[in-house]
Every structure is written in structure tokens, then in C-alpha cells.
């Protein structure tokens, strides 16, 4: 029989999802827009944590998967129905991750971080170049789905992203990733094929950002490579991971909710200094709560070890 705690947790999660799904009935478009934003960052940060949180390889390249997802959806706009285009955006991003991961995952530590950032900028400029060559100066999408439809779709993606992190973390793959994070040489010595494990997870972790990019371009209705491939997306994901923690499902969730709500609040109340306050907050977290909110909560909740 399932332990009571697990039953309560599942009931709570189902209830939360139902409440979320019904949100557009109670709040106006502004509220739904913010909620969509929160769900987007949850989806992105959870999928990022699947690779970077578990393996310790910090990717600053996830913006490229978001951008490619957006681009695929734009290219397929009105050629195929959206229920085909959006999943294809995910697969397009996955394919790109497979191609980029092969060379990038050969290096570790700071080299990997810089390389992912560089490669994602490189892809951005390829897209900018090819759009210019095609004579396209931005693309407008007319007749995109309503905000509520996009919100419900994003809710689904965020749930999938969280479940995916949970499943991977508790699987053989997750055990291998955590071993790689702790000591890659020792992981190899017990049979973990680090290259295969990292590449597979890197690819899996790009699927959700691709789908999210596809959905968000339908929200903005205007595609412009500099915006779609903005590296700030990657930086924000890492910020969320620092705030919330990236070791398990609740971390990115906490971080995303905190960051988006705080941004909205600060932006509305103190638009002149809001970025400064966010920056100071981030520095404070790095210095004083390096394990993230989730890690701190877990540490406080667990009894002191002898």
C-alpha cells in the first residue's frame, strides 16, 4: 500500500493542477498572462534541471532550443496544423541538441558552460543570416490561438516537464547522471557510459524548451531571431535554478514562481530599480543559500545528524 504521505502529495498535486486549469475563469487576461509566464519558466527550468541539475554540466545554451522551437513553428505556420507543428518544434530542438551535444559534451566545467553559450549564439547568428538572405525582416503570425488555449497547453507542458524530471531522476539514467555529477571517472569505473548518458539526457532536456518556444511564439505572434534566441532565456533559467535549487522537482518550481512573481511585483512598484534589486537578490542567494530554497528547506526539515 502507498504511504499516506505519497497519497496526500498526489491528491495535493491533482488539486493544484485542477485549480490552475480553472484559473482563466477567475482572473482576467493580465493574470492569465502572468500565470502563463510562470508555467513557461517552470517548464523550462524543470527540463534544464533534468540535464544540468542532475549531471552538474551547467548549460547556458538552452535558449537555442527555445529559439529553434519557435523557428520551427514559424516555418511550419499554416503548412501543417499546430498539433503537428508544436511537437515537431520539440523534436527539432531535440535533434539540434543531439548534434550540438556531441562536440560540446567532450569538455567539462567552465569550458562546457562557455561552449554552450558560444554555440547557442552561433546558431542564433546562422538563423539571423539565413533570414536576412531570404529577405525576411521578421515574420508575423496572424490568427494564433487565444491566450487561454495557450495557457492550458503550457500547463500541460509544465506538468510533463515536472513528471519527466521525476521519472528520469528515479530511473537508471538518473542514477548514472548523479554519479557523473559526483565523479565522472568513478562513474565510468562502475560501468556508466558517461558519453551516452549525457548525450541522451541533453537531447531529452531540449524537447520541452522546443515545445515552449513554439507555444510562446504563438503568444507573441511575431518572430524576430534576436528575440527568439535571446541568451537571457538561458540566464533566467540558471537564475531560477539558483533561487529554487535544481536537484529535484520542487526546486525549479519554487524558483520559477518566486522569480516571476517578484519580477512582476518589483516591475510594477519600482520600475527604475527593479533589475538592481533582482541582481542583489541573486548575489545574496549565491552567497548565503547556495543550495537553493529547496535544499535549505530540506536541510532545515531533516533532523540534525550526529
Amino acid at each position, binding site marked *: 500500500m502507498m504511504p499516506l504521505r505519497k497519497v496526500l502529495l498526489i491528491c495535493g498535486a491533482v488539486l493544484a493542477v485542477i485549480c490552475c486549469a480553472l484559473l482563466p475563469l477567475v482572473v482576467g487576461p493580465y493574470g492569465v498572462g502572468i500565470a502563463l509566464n510562470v508555467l513557461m519558466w517552470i517548464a523550462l527550468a524543470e527540463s534544464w534541471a533534468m540535464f544540468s541539475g542532475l549531471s552538474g554540466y551547467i548549460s547556458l545554451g538552452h535558449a537555442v532550443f527555445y529559439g529553434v522551437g519557435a523557428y520551427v513553428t514559424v516555418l511550419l505556420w499554416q503548412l501543417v496544423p499546430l498539433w503537428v507543428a508544436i511537437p515537431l518544434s520539440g523534436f527539432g530542438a531535440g535533434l539540434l541538441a543531439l548534434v550540438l551535444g556531441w562536440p560540446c559534451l567532450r569538455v567539462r566545467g567552465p569550458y562546457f558552460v562557455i561552449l554552450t553559450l558560444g554555440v547557442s549564439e552561433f546558431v542564433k547568428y546562422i538563423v539571423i543570416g539565413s533570414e536576412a538572405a531570404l529577405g525576411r525582416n521578421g515574420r508575423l503570425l496572424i490568427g494564433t490561438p487565444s491566450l487561454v488555449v495557450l495557457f492550458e497547453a503550457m500547463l500541460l507542458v509544465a506538468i510533463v516537464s515536472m513528471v519527466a524530471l521525476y521519472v528520469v531522476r528515479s530511473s537508471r539514467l538518473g*542514477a548514472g547522471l548523479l*554519479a557523473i555529477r559526483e*565523479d565522472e571517472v568513478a562513474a565510468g569505473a562502475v*560501468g556508466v557510459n558517461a558519453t551516452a548518458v549525457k548525450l541522451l539526457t541533453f537531447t531529452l532536456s531540449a524537447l520541452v524548451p522546443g515545445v515552449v518556444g513554439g507555444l510562446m511564439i504563438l503568444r507573441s505572434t511575431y518572430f524576430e531571431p534576436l528575440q527568439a534566441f535571446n541568451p537571457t532565456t538561458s540566464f533566467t533559467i540558471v537564475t531560477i535554478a539558483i533561487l529554487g535549487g535544481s536537484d529535484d522537482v520542487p526546486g525549479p518550481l519554487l524558483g520559477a514562481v518566486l522569480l516571476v512573481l517578484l519580477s512582476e511585483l518589483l516591475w510594477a512598484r519600482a520600475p527604475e530599480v527593479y533589475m538592481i534589486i533582482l541582481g542583489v537578490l541573486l548575489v545574496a542567494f549565491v552567497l548565503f543559500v547556495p543550495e537553493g530554497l529547496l535544499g535549505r528547506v530540506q536541510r532545515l526539515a531533516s533532523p540534525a*545528524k550526529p
Partner: protein
Amino acid sequence: MTLLRLENVGKSYGGVVALRGLSLTVAAGEIVGLMGANGAGKTTAFSLIAGTQRPSSGEIWFADSRIDGKPAYAAARIGIARTFQIVRPFGGLRVIDNLVVAALYGHKREVSRSLAEDRARAILDEVGLARDALRPAASLTLAGRKRLEVARALATHPRLLLLDEVLAGLTATEVIEALEMIRALHRRRNLTLIVIEHVMRALTQLCGRIIVLHHGEKIAEGVPREILTNQQVIDSYLGARSR
């Protein structure tokens, strides 16, 4: 039956020769000791067998298949497990999870996490770490971490286990306990062992045969009694006496 065979295996780093023309065979079920002064090439030999490094020359055969040049994970999957001289636990993981990874990826792979945990618990019992199963590996004492190193290697279900100075740094009592543990493991599990050790008494008690390396070359091989009285071995350890 020969389980492991090295033929003329050499390893050099740039101009520095770490191992020169090493040939040896190990039969299934044997415990072979590997000794020599610091820098003699013992750990290099382990790294080549376990695939952590590639040999510069020669061939390595394990159970009738050639394995030199194969990566470490492949060696682990065909049944070669090693411990590291400077222990490398997965410090941030719980002790039991260190073994679960090995049980999920090693030679005989468990199909599910719960089966892997069962195997892990049985091994932790065997090596005396059962009480520490849920602690973070980094919080263990040195003796505990050395045991964990052995336990994690065992969790891959190896046929050949390479123990690299698992007794070094332990107190006298801990050495006796660890020796007892290694003997019991060998008895119960039908394991083949190669043991690197500086503690001479331990080697002579444990091993049926000892191989001595000096400056990357094999200078002696035989039963412990012969090795202890071999003049070349004594010279290599203490420096040649002027005659």
C-alpha cells in the same frame, strides 16, 4: 582457467616510461599480490587493466576477449571492477546510492532500482557498512570510505576485483578487520583478486602469488616466501647495498 592475461604491456607518458613489457597471467579464483616501491607502475597496471587508461603497447586479454583500448565502462560491464588508491566516493550521494549506481550499470545489471537496492543492502551488510547506508558518503571516516570503495566495486558483481591499497592509512586494528573482510569476500563470492599493497604482512597472508615491479618492469614473481627472501626484491625496496 586463465581469467586475465597481459602480454608485453607497456605505458609511457611522453618520454617517461611507467610500465615496460609487463606480462602476467591470473587464473580464476586466485589472489595475486602486486608490490613495488612508489612509482614502480602498480597503479598504472591497474588503470590499463580497468580501461581507465590505454596501453601504449601490448595486449590485454580477459576471459578470451581482447580488452586493451576499451573504455573503463566497458571493462566494468564485462566484470572488471577496481578501487581507487585515493578514494573516489560519490560524496554527495547516500552510501547506499553509491552502490545502487554500480548495481544498475555494472557487470550483472539489476533491472529495477528496488532490486539494485536489495543488492546494495546485502553488500553493505557484508562489508559492515549497513548502519551507514543512509548517510552521505562524504561523511564517512577514511576506513569507512575505503570499505565503501570496495563495496561499490562489489556491487558491479565483478569477476575480477582490483584492490589498490585499500589498507593504506588504516590503523592496525582496522587492517586486521579489512583483511578478514577481503578473505571472507573471496571465499564467498568466487572472486579473483589482484591486490596492490605496501603492508607486506598483509600481502603475504592474503596472496598465493606475488608479482614485484621495479621501475616499470617485473623483477620477481612467486610464492610469498620466495619473494621475501629474493635479493633483487630487497634491493629494490631498500636500495642496493654496496658490496
